[in-house]
C-alpha cells in the first residue's frame, strides 16, 4: 500500500502524455479514460522491483526473430498479442482481440479491443498487425520465424525456405481501424491457439519508420503493447519498466523487472539462495539430488521459496537418419523398451522429470496418455525383439551436447541398454550445442545411433508437437521420418471443423509414431524455480516463463 501513490502518479503522467500524443495522431482519443481506469483498477499488488536470471538473446529482440528462451523471456513480458495464454494451463484467451470468428476454419474475422496502446502512446490498430505479419513473413526481412505465417493465403514459398517470396500476403486485409480478416490457404482449425505466439505480435508505426538494416535500431529498445516496456538493454542486463499506459487485462504487478545476464545457471542459483537475485527459472540438476535445493530455498520463518511447474517441453532421442541398421523397426522398439524411464528420472533428476508416455506434452491441448506402448519398460520383451532383429553391430552411440548437462542421463540410458540388451553403447558428447546441431543439420555420416532433441512448444496444441517434427520434410524433422498416412492425418485434422474432431485425428497420427518409432520419447519437463525472500509468491507459465502479473511481494 505504501507505493500506491507512486503508481497513481505514474499513471497520471502517462495519461497526460497519451492525450497529447493521441491528439496529434489519429484524433481518436476516446481511449484515454479507459486507459487510466485500467491501470489503477486492475493492479493486483503494487510496486517493488525484482531481478530475474536472464541469458543473452541470440537474435535482435524482434518478435518474428526470436524463437529461443533468452530473448523470448523478455518479449513475453513486453509484447501483447491477439491471444494470451493463461499462466496456469496455457489455455488461450483473447487479449488484444475482442473476437476472432470463423465458420469454416478458412475465413477469419478479427476484431480488436479499442484502447490498446503501444508504449510510445500510439494506438494498436488492425494495420499494425497486418503490416507486422507481412514484414515478418517476407523473405527480404530474413526473419527466422517467417514460417509461422505459412498457413496464411498468399504465402508462397517455391524454394522451401520457409518465408514468403512476395512482400505481402493476399490472405490479410484491413477492414477498418479495429477489424481485419485472415484467410488461410487450407482449413486451420487451431489458428486461434497459434495466434498467441510471439511472432504474431503487432508493431507500432515507429517500427516501420526505422530504416536501419534488420530494424536493428528499433530492436535495441523495442516498443510493444504489453504490460512491461524494455527501457534498457545491454550486454549485462535488460531492464523492463511497468508500462503505465497499459490498458489490457493482464497487467504486471511489480514496477520494475531487471533481467541480469548469467552465463552459468549455478551462479544464478547461488545468488538466489543468498538473496542477491530474486528469481531463477533454472535449478542446476546437481542441486536436485537429495532435494538439496528445497532445503536451500526456505525462508527463516519456514516458508518455501521454490516452486515447480509442468512445462510444454519434451525430450526425445531421435534414431539417426543415416544409420542403416536402425531402419529395422523392431530394433528401434527394443531400444525404447529396454530401459527404465522411471528409474533414470528418479536417479538422475530426483523425479523432477516425468517419464514420457507419448510424443506430446500433457500441457498441450489434445494430449492423450499412454500413446507410446514402447515406452513401458519391459526387459524380457526388449531382449527378445533385440535378438530377433539380429542385434546392433558395433558401438551404439547416443549423441548429446556437452554444454547442457545431458551427460549423466545419456550415460544412464546407455548403461541400462548395455545391461538389459547386451549391446555395446557409448555416449558421444559434442563440445557444444552448435556442433551437434550442425552435424544433425548436415546429416553427418558419422552421426550413427541416436541424437538428442528437445522440443519446447510454440503454442499449447498437440499439432505443434507433431507437424513441425514428424511431417514429411518438416523444418525440425531430424530423423527424416516420412509416412504418407501420417501426413494425410495431419491435413485432415487441420481441416476438421471442431477442435475436438481435429484433436482425435492428431491422436491417430500420434499412434502411427508408436508403430514406426521415428524417435524415442524420454520425459516431459517439469521446471523448478526459486525466488528470494523478497517475493511471497510467483507463477511460472507452461512456457517456463514467469508471469510477472502474479508476483506478490512480501
Amino acid at each position, binding site marked *: 500500500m505504501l507505493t500506491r501513490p507512486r503508481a497513481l502518479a505514474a499513471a497520471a503522467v502517462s495519461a497526460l502524455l497519451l492525450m497529447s500524443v493521441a491528439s496529434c495522431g489519429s484524433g481518436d482519443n476516446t481511449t484515454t479514460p479507459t486507459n487510466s481506469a485500467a491501470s489503477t483498477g486492475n493492479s493486483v499488488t503494487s510496486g517493488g522491483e525484482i531481478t530475474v536470471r536472464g541469458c543473452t*538473446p541470440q537474435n535482435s529482440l524482434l518478435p518474428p526473430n526470436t524463437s529461443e528462451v533468452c530473448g523470448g523471456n523478455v518479449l513475453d513480458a513486453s509484447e501483447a498479442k491477439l491471444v494470451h495464454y493463461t499462466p496456469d494451463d496455457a489455455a488461450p484467451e483473447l487479449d488484444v482481440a475482442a473476437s476472432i470468428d470463423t465458420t469454416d476454419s478458412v475465413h477469419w474475422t478479427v476484431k480488436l479491443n479499442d484502447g490498446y496502446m503501444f508504449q510510445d502512446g500510439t494506438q494498436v490498430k488492425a494495420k499494425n498487425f497486418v503490416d507486422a505479419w507481412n514484414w515478418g513473413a517476407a523473405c527480404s526481412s530474413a526473419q527466422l520465424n517467417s514460417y509461422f505465417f505459412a498457413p496464411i493465403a498468399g504465402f508462397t514459398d517455391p524454394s522451401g525456405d520457409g518465408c514468403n517470396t512476395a512482400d505481402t500476403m493476399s490472405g490479410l486485409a484491413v477492414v477498418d481501424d479495429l477489424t481485419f480478416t485472415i484467410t488461410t490457404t487450407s482449413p486451420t482449425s487451431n489458428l486461434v491457439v497459434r495466434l498467441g505466439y510471439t511472432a504474431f505480435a503487432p508493431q507500432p508505426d515507429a517500427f516501420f519508420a526505422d530504416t536501419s538494416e534488420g530494424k536493428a535500431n528499433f530492436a535495441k529498445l523495442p516498443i510493444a503493447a504489453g504490460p512491461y516496456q524494455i527501457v534498457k538493454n545491454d550486454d549485462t542486463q535488460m531492464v523492463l519498466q511497468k508500462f503505465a499506459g497499459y490498458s489490457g487485462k493482464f497487467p504486471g504487478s511489480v514496477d520494475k523487472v531487471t533481467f541480469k545476464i548469467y552465463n552459468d545457471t549455478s551462479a544464478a542459483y547461488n545468488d538466489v539462495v543468498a538473496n542477491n537475485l530474486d528469481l531463477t527459472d533454472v535449478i542446476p540438476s546437481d542441486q536436485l539430488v537429495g532435494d538439496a535445493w528445497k532445503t536451500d530455498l526456505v525462508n527463516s520463518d519456514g516458508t518455501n521459496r521454490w516452486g515447480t511447474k509442468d512445462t510444454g517441453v519434451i525430450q526425445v532421442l531421435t534414431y539417426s537418419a543415416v544409420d542403416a541398421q536402425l531402419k529395422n523397426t523392431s530394433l528401434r522398439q527394443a531400444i525404447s523398451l529396454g530401459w527404465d524411464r522411471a528409474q533414470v528420472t528418479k536417479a538422475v533428476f530426483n523425479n523432477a522429470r516425468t517419464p514420457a508416455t507419448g510424443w506430446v506434452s500433457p500441457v498441450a491441448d489434445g494430449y492423450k496418455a499412454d500413446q507410446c506402448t514402447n515406452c513401458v519398460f519391459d526387459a524380457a520383451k526388449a531382449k527378445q525383439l533385440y535378438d530377433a532383429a539380429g542385434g546392433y553391430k558395433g558401438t551404439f552411440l547416443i549423441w548429446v551436447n556437452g554444454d547442457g548437462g545431458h551427460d549423466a542421463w545419456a550415460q544412464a540410458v546407455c548403461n541400462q541398454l548395455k545391461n538389459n540388451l547386451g549391446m555395446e553403447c557409448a555416449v558421444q558428447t559434442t563440445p557444444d550445442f552448435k556442433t551437434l546441431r550442425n552435424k544433425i543439420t548436415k546429416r553427418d555420416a558419422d552421426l550413427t545411433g541416436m541424437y538428442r532433441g528437445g522440443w519446447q512448444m510454440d503454442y499449447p496444441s498437440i499439432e505443434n508437437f507433431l507437424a513441425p517434427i514428424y511431417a514429411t520434410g518438416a523444418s525440425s524433422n531430424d530423423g527424416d521420418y516420412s509416412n504418407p498416412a501420417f501426413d494425410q492425418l495431419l491435413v485432415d485434422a487441420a481441416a476438421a471443423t471442431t477442435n475436438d474432431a481435429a484433436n482425435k485425428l492428431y491422436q491417430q497420427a500420434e499412434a502411427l509414431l508408436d508403430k514406426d518409432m521415428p524417435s524415442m520419447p524420454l520425459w516431459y519437463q517439469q521446471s523448478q524455480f526459486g525466488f528470494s525472500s523478497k517475493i511471497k509468491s510467483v507463477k511460472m507459465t507452461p512456457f517456463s516463463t514467469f508471469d510477472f502479473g502474479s508476483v506478490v511481494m512480501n
Partner: protein
Amino acid sequence: MGKYVVRRLLMMIPTFLGATLIIFYLSFALPGDPTAGRCGERPCPASYVEWFRSHYGLDKPFLVQYGIYMGRLLTGDLGTNYYGNTVIHELAIRYPTTLKLAVIAIVAEILIGIGAGILAGIRRGRFIDSLVTISTLVVIAIPVFVLGSLAQMVFGIKLKWFPVTAGDGTWGQLLLPGLVLGSLYVAYVARLTRTNLVENLRADYVRTAYAKGMQPARAIGLHALRNSLLPSITYIGASFGALLGGAIVTERIFNINGVGSLIYRSISQRDGTTLVGAVVVIVVIYMVMTLLVDLLYGLLDPRLRHE
C-alpha cells in the same frame, strides 16, 4: 636501452600480425554454423542462414575475410558482433573487470606467493616449509573448477564472508574470484621462489658474505633474494597474460562479466569477430608485460645488459 625498447616495440608488429592470423584461422576453423542454435532447438530457415552469412561476410574465402578484418582494424574498427554491439564497446565494458581480477591475482602472487616461498626457503625443512609444500600441492592438484565451486560454497554461501557472485565487478566482489584465479600461480611462485632461494643460500657468494661476517638478514636480502627472485618475476609477468585468458572458468563460476566469459560465449556462439578482438587485446597486453619484465630483468641482474 631506448633503442632496445623501440626495437622490441617494432617487433610487436609481426607478432601482432601472426597472432591475428592464427586466431582468425582458429575461429574460422571452429566447426558449427553460427546460426545453429539461434533458432532454439530447431534449424534456422535457409533464407535466414543465407542472409546471416552474407551479412557478416561468412560466405567469403578465409583470406578475404582476414583481409577485410585487418583493413577495418587499421582504422581502429574491431567490427560489430552478432548481437549488434561493436566489439570495442564490449571490450571496453569487460576489460576493466578482468584487469581488476588479474591485478588481485598478481598482488596475491607477489604477497602470498613470494612471501610463502621466502619463508619456506629460509626455514628449509622446518614446519613452515612442509606447510607451504603441502598447501601448494593441494592447490595445484585440485582442478580450478572444483576449487572455485568449493570457495563459492564455503566462503560465499555458508560463511557469507564474500559475495556469492560478482556480476557488478566491484573490487569487493572480485576479491574471492581473484584469489581463486590466482591460486595456481601463487602456488607456482611460492615453489619457484623457495627452490631458487634454497639454491642461492648455498651459493658461494652468500657463503662468502657470511664468512665476511655479514648479518644473515643482510646476506639473504642483498644477495640471495635478489638473485632468487628473478625467475619468480619472469613467472609473475608471464602469468598476467595467462590470467586474462585463463579467467574463463573462474568468470563462469562467479558470473563475472569479463573477458573470460566473453571469450567463452563467443566460442560457443561462433562469434568470431568478438573472439578475435578479445584475444588480440590479450596478445598485446601480454607482449607489453613481457617487455616490462625483460626490462626489469636488466635492472635486477647487472650481468644482463640490453645493448
